[in-house]
């Protein structure tokens, strides 16, 4: 039980009632620890019981007749519980000296050992360490698959409407280079307000960024069950980054206040890219365009339709014109490149289902050596994937991850999944498809770490190679 002794200090003569400097210091430092820096907070705690002793016999709640006229509050007189006392000058000077010492210690520590930045900075990163073994050809080995460091923060923060400007700079390496190269490097501006969850959001993003085509290539790593993306994502260049400008937002948000849940009926994204890929200057005068729209079920949190979404994506651009592997003279940026696809998902923990179907059309030269004499043709490719997963654990429940606890607890979660992945590089050619069936198991055991097991059966009809692949991967971040 907390006991606050009475004290009132008016002059040095009141020594009998004077709270010792030490007690006062303890109170002040205690108040500092809980974000209270003034002496009044500690002092007036005792004043209240005198006004209103807490007991069965205390006065009943204020009646309407004694209440201040409603709506005509006087700020100077409202909070009568803020009564204070006085301390001597010597005691106050002593407390000030101790606070100054603490401040100096803190400043020294900040200067010597705490990292600094000009603007707000959030540092994060992730690494994938993998062991993989395959049957045909037989090979196995450990692999550090990727390492990414990401720096994010606000350049300008708008507290009134949330029309803030933020930045993202990512540096990453992969197995092909093992050199750090920029991954994300963009500015984001919230054109519309972003604080009221009941209203639409609208953002613009400028710089090198991930394309936003479909589901497979855009799902964040923590929500992607399989280690590898579906074949079409890499074969059609959907998972790469590009340099350009993207406008995206949503419309008609549905808010379920019982859960702090927000889902917009429509999400959209429109982008203009160089089309030359990441860390590369534009190789032609044309720009690629990309559009995506998602219709979400406008359902409350407890609705069985929550998590149901239907998406459509379109990408049109230019690429270099090749005959086989030979670039046609003056063929830079002269070949058409079109992608379109649709996706359906129902992700409502503990159950998840995703399906995506994508068509690619790439213009190539059948014959000729220059742009003038090239005979062109379009190759149509096709890919689709279906994934089913189920979870035991609370990893994907937002509020379960956020608990008042003493320990470094994290909801241990198990997630088995199965995925079928089909890729046909040329629909005009028979028996050239590649199919991969993956059985997997993900184990989430710490806030930023998961362990993944994937067993894949692949059948490449073009090369007549059937292969079994096993991969075990730790993905960890900070």
């Amino acid at each position, binding site marked *: 039980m907390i006991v606050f002794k009475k004290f009132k200090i008016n002059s040095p003569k009141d020594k009998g009632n004077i709270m010792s400097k030490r007690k006062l210091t303890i109170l002040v430092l205690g108040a500092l620890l809980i974000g209270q820096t003034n002496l009044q907070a500690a002092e007036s705690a005792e004043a209240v019981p005198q006004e209103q002793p807490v007991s069965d016999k205390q006065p009943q709640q204020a009646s309407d007749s004694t209440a201040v006229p409603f709506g005509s509050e006087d700020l100077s007189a409202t909070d009568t519980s803020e009564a204070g006392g006085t301390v001597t000058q010597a005691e106050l000077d002593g407390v000030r000296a101790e606070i100054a010492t603490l401040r100096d210690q803190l400043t020294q520590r900040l200067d010597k050992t705490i990292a600094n930045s000009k603007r707000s900075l959030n540092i994060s990163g992730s690494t994938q360490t993998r062991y993989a073994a395959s049957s045909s050809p037989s090979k196995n080995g450990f692999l550090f698959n990727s390492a990414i460091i990401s720096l994010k923060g606000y350049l300008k923060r708008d507290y009134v409407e949330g029309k803030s400007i933020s930045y993202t700079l990512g540096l990453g390496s992969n197995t092909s280079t093992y050199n750090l190269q920029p991954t994300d490097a963009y500015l984001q501006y919230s054109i519309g307000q972003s604080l009221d969850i009941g209203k639409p959001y609208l953002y613009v993003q400028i710089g090198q960024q991930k394309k936003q085509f479909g589901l497979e290539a855009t799902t964040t790593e923590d929500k992607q069950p399989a280690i590898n993306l579906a074949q079409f994502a890499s074969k059609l260049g959907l998972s790469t980054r590009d340099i350009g400008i993207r406008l995206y937002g949503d419309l008609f948000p549905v808010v379920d*206040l019982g859960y702090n849940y927000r889902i917009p009926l429509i999400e959209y994204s429109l982008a203009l890219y160089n089309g030359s890929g990441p860390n590369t200057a534009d190789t032609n005068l044309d720009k690629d365009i990309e559009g995506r729209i998602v219709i979400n079920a406008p359902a409350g949190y*407890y609705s069985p339709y929550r998590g149901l979404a239907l998406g459509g994506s379109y990408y049109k651009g230019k690429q270099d014109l090749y005959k086989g592997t030979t670039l046609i003279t003056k063929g830079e940026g002269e070949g058409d490149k079109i992608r379109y696809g649709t996706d359906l998902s129902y992700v409502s923990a503990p159950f998840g289902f995703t399906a995506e179907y994508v068509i690619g059309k790439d213009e190539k030269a059948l014959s000729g050596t220059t742009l003038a004499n090239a005979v062109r043709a379009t190759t149509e490719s096709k890919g689709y994937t279906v994934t089913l997963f189920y979870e035991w654990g609370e990893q994907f429940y937002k509020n379960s991850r956020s*608990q*008042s606890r003493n320990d470094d607890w994290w909801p241990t979660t198990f997630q088995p999944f199965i995925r079928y992945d089909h890729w046909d590089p040329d629909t005009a050619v028979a028996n050239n498809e590649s199919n991969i069936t993956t059985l997997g198991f993900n184990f989430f055991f710490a806030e930023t770490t998961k362990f993944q097991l994937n067993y894949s059966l692949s059948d490449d009809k073009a090369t007549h190679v059937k292969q079994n692949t096993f991969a075990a991967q730790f993905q960890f971040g900070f």
Partner: protein
Amino acid sequence: MKKWIKALPIVALLFVTGVAHAEEKPKVIRIGGGGNALNLPQASGAIGWVNEQGLLEKEFAKDGIKIERTYYKAMGPGQNEAIASGLIDFGSAGDLVTVVGRAGGLPYKIISTSGAGGSNIYIQVNPASGIKSLKDLKGKRIGYQKGTYLHLAFNRILDAVGLTEKEIRGVNLVNADAQAALATNSVDAIVSSSDRPLVDQGVAKLLFDTRKYPQFKSGPGSIFVTEAFANKYPETTRRVLKTLLKGYYWASKPENQEAIIASSVKNGGTYKHIKADLIGALPPKERYDPTVTTKVLKDYQEIIDFAFKRGIIRRRYNVSELFDLRFQAPALKELGYDKYWVHN
């Protein structure tokens, strides 16, 4: 024949008792609650005392039933998500949380209030905002956590001065963020519970609080249970409630008020503000009265109606849909508390 008829109630009682004893028992009872400012896994008040004393653990130890407690930082909305996901069986929250949850079809029922006193609401303003009265809130940036009792009470206060939520610029902020936003002049005012360190520091002024206008205090909080648990384990549900009621009996004693305040301080409250919050408050016996009375039901129906009128919920429903009154009266009678909280 007469003797046989007289024996009927006894037979019925034996039968009911037999059924109760035959009830399947859960292996674990999962109880949700709100987190606190210090992010510690503990509650305050009556439930905090029950937890400290380990009363639920003692009650169910002989049956081998484990007690699991989860404290959600997102408070009521966090517990609603947990109920929807089948993660907890019991919980406790403010008045609006269950009203909104039930409107969305959440299968739970209130089996007791968590004290009839309700909670005070405070409106703190930035002195530079020019806000001198509640009517001045029009067009201003106001921070508060939507979906909580603060949201509902604030709507009622606005309503009383002829304003609606659409006429202010509401910013959805949890209490800690709202305090920070007020300190940095990012909002003009915040709606909060009793803690107001910014007023102490001279950064903010207290514009309004319900100590002077108790008609705008929040309604009684709730103790709820999932329908599935209550229907499958009615005897266990009654025993859980019976144990919690011991906490409300303890909290209703004047001599325990300092201990209750101390437990609130241990959860991050400020002693001075908790004390000051009691100015004009009902006596403890009334404040911690957990019984579901006709007035409580009427209060909740008004909340449902008002929330619907203000668009906070999309479905208006009868309060009977929200309450399950099977458990409280027998539990009170077993404890001998049935005449303790007397109502006119």
